[in-house]
């Protein structure tokens, strides 16, 4: 490093307002991990109320004070705030910034051999818009009336009521920040991938992870603006008293609402889900990309059906724009629309199945190394499988009517995002940690983290299928109020205890993450004996990434090539 050169950028420019994609990637990673922990904390509090609805939470009252508790009992309003903010934080402040802002920023430019992103300053701006957006969201806990409490979907007219409280308004403002941030990011990603690939790196030599990020960026670019439009309209409804989403004859609290009326609450749902369905694929595609990398590396053989994987991802990205109304079968939007969206929903499951099948088939005949990233990647496969298969009944209107808004839905999408995506993201952290720090993470702590996470994640979410099939509604503050809820209350308790134990299971990870910075085993450029370009750079790579510009000679996953002396033939090494 050139610390003593006179044009050294200094601490602030190097670590705070850095334009280096790797520093920004790490900023995104650390920030989003903190947000994930916070969002997880919110849900651990919720689980207390769910498991022990009449319980005495004096110990929580001492922490949170009067705003959320009265005489040891949790207020329903506070419970609703926890729920709404848990969803928002996990999706918009946790998983997406980690998968795209963190991994995308750090790994993608390295994998295409670029010295940096196409627009480094825009990249920095993207992070510095994301962070205030997140802080605005968090600050809403401290205003009168508390944070947003209308669910992460913020359906009007409910979300338009009580405009005198700032919570939901801050939610909308925070959202506009986050949308701006992802817009800046996605433009940057697409331009970088198209323009800055190194010599020899054609599109079909791109690692699968880069493809996943490429399609994800298009989804972010084109699906987020309609939500921004909807957010602006809801903001107008709350601040300027308009009636975009307020129907005629609305009565709030027994009194006619003092608005013009004539609006359409369904309009919000259409615009919201037009984003939020592609958003599901924004959550899952980078995860699939990570799993692809880790599996190819640790089976020591090429990914099975690389081209079908790529075509499937492209098709998935396209289809994700025309399935949104399968979230809305119960809104009375009509048979014709339902039939259309059922059909597209069934069609979109085909590429998902192709991808999962290809990843599973990649294991066949491999000499598998069961290291920590691989364990996480392997457990991703069945978890994502369960998440996907339990989604099928929700995609058909007839069965969705039974299951809509029950815990079954919660179980389904959490299986995709938590045991699914989060497992893959952990795999990615263990896999690229040596590249980012120059040191390995501890294997023993990693395995402890893996087994705890796998067991308790299932413990949290499998009971939800049982509750859902018993008909328990997802937004109940106290399900024992109802007979059918009482019968499955034991499952709720089991789920809550799993959630708390899951929290304990993350302690080895947190220790490992920080201790390995100092104590981890030092590694060279390519500790995993991998083939893609990021392993051509020093670990950690300096500003500008590569000591000399690499050239690509072959496809991304040439493992165990017959006749080669090693079992891996990196993209950047010319055949002798």
């Amino acid at each position, binding site marked *: *490093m*050139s610390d003593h*050169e006179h*044009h*050294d*950028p200094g601490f602030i420019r190097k670590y705070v307002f850095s*334009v280096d994609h790797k520093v920004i990637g790490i900023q995104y990673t650390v920030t989003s991990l903190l947000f994930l922990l916070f969002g997880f904390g919110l849900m651990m509090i919720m689980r207390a109320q769910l498991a022990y609805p009449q319980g005495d939470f004096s110990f929580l009252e001492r922490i949170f004070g009067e705003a959320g508790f009265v005489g040891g009992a949790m207020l329903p309003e506070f419970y609703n705030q926890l729920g709404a903010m848990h969803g928002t934080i996990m999706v918009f402040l946790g998983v997406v910034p980690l998968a795209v802002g963190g991994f995308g920023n750090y790994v993608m430019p390295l994998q295409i051999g*670029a*010295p*940096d992103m*196409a*627009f*480094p300053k*825009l990249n920095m701006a993207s992070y510095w818009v994301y962070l205030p957006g997140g802080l605005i969201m968090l600050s809403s806990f401290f205003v009168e009336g508390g944070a947003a409490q209308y669910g992460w979907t913020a359906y009007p007219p409910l979300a338009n009521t009580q405009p005198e409280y700032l919570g939901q308004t801050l939610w909308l403002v925070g959202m506009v920040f986050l949308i701006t941030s992802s*817009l800046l990011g*996605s*433009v*940057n990603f*697409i*331009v970088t991938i*198209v*323009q*800055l690939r190194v010599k020899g790196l054609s599109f079909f030599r791109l690692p699968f992870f880069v493809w996943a990020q490429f399609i994800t960026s298009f989804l972010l*670019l*084109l*699906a*987020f*603006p*309609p939500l*921004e*439009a*909807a957010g*602006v*309209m809801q903001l*107008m409804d709350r601040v*300027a*008293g*308009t*009636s*975009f989403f307020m129907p005629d004859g609305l009565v709030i609290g027994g009194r006619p609402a*003092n*608005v*013009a009326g*004539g*609006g*359409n609450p369904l*309009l919000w749902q259409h*615009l919201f889900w*037009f984003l939020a369905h592609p958003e599901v694929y924004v959550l899952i595609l980078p995860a699939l990309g990570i799993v692809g990398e880790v599996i190819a590396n640790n089976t020591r053989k090429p990914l099975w059906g690389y081209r079908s994987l790529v075509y499937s991802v492209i098709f998935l990205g396209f289809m994700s724009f025309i399935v949104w109304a399968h979230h809305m079968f119960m809104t009375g939007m009509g048979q014709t629309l339902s039939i259309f969206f059922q059909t597209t929903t069934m069609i979109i499951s085909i590429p998902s199945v192709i991808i999962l099948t290809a990843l599973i088939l990649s294991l066949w005949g491999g000499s598998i190394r069961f290291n920590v990233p691989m364990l996480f990647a392997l457990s991703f496969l069945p978890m994502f499988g369960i998440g996907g298969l339990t989604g099928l009944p929700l995609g058909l209107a007839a069965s969705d009517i039974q299951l809509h808004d029950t815990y079954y839905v919660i179980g389904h999408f959490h299986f995709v995002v938590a045991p699914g995506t989060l497992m893959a993201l952990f795999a990615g952290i263990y896999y690229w940690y040596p590249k980012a720090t120059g040191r390995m993470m501890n294997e023993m702590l990693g395995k402890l983290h893996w087994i705890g996470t796998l067991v308790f994640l299932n413990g949290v979410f499998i009971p939800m299928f049982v509750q859902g099939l018993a008909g328990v509604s997802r937004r109940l503050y106290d399900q024992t109020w109802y007979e059918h809820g009482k019968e499955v209350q034991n499952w709720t308790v089991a789920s809550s205890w799993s959630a708390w134990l899951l929290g304990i299971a993350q302690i080895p990870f947190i220790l490992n993450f920080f201790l390995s910075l100092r104590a981890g085993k030092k590694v060279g450029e390519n500790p995993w004996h991998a083939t893609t370009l990021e392993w051509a750079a020093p670990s950690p790579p*300096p*500003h*500008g*990434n590569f000591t000399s510009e690499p050239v690509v000679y072959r496809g991304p996953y040439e493992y165990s090539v017959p006749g080669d002396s090693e079992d891996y033939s990196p993209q950047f090494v010319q055949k002798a």
Partner: protein
Amino acid sequence: MSAPVIRYIDEPHPVTGVTNGKFGLWLFLASEVMLFGALFSSYILLRVGAKSWPDGWERLNVPLATANTVVLITSSVTMVMAWVGCKLNDLGKFRFYMGITVALSFVFLVIKTIEYKPKFEHYQVYFYDGATIPGYEELTTITGHLEEDDFEKDYIVFAPDKKQPSQTLPDAEGHGDHDHAEGDHDDHGHGHYADPIQINRYDIKRLTNFGPAHSNFYAIYFTMTGLHGLHVIGGIVVNLYFLLFGAGMFRSNIAQFSNRIECAGLYWHFVDLVWIFLFPSIYLL
């Protein structure tokens, strides 16, 4: 530690044929199309679903909007001329035309303000069924000027317009309303108002000015033209920056500078284009 060299900043990529900046700007515009596309779709949906919808040309100020259309199109032309100034390596020409572009953008905003202002000063009162207002017994709603609205008192003082909305429809949003209910085309002197009357608060179902809260027509009008106005302000910021601080780069790296002006121009034409859609669909339909 020197900054890494990023390719295709001022020369086009051999395969895609564009620079990074221009490519990024086109992507940004694609995203903007989705943003305004969602708003236009919402407009269509709300209008098609409404029981009645006023005609834009009766409620809004078409002459001012026409003037603004001319202003904006002219500024697009001068924007191109500023870019030509860069290409000819003529700093004076660049400054002259960029100066006009920025000035015209300000003119657009000033006209917009003149257009917005009276709508916030003009009011409509809706009465409860059975309320009788002396002199206006047959009306369920009247428009006019709010003279006094003191929360201490249980009445408001209201100067009704001499021309009131049509009687045949229950509210002023009806299509039968051909009498410039909002009075945009009139000057707002007191000559157009009848004598002020007192209206008891308990007779008032709803009191609103002709701002966004009045009805979905005004909500759409203010939201879409307002968002467009924000885009104009964004353009002013960028163009003003190039005008005031661009000379250094103009001299040192004219190629990259003209690329930047070209990108700013693309954005500016997009803002212009949005207005070309807004003007007929909101003001003229």
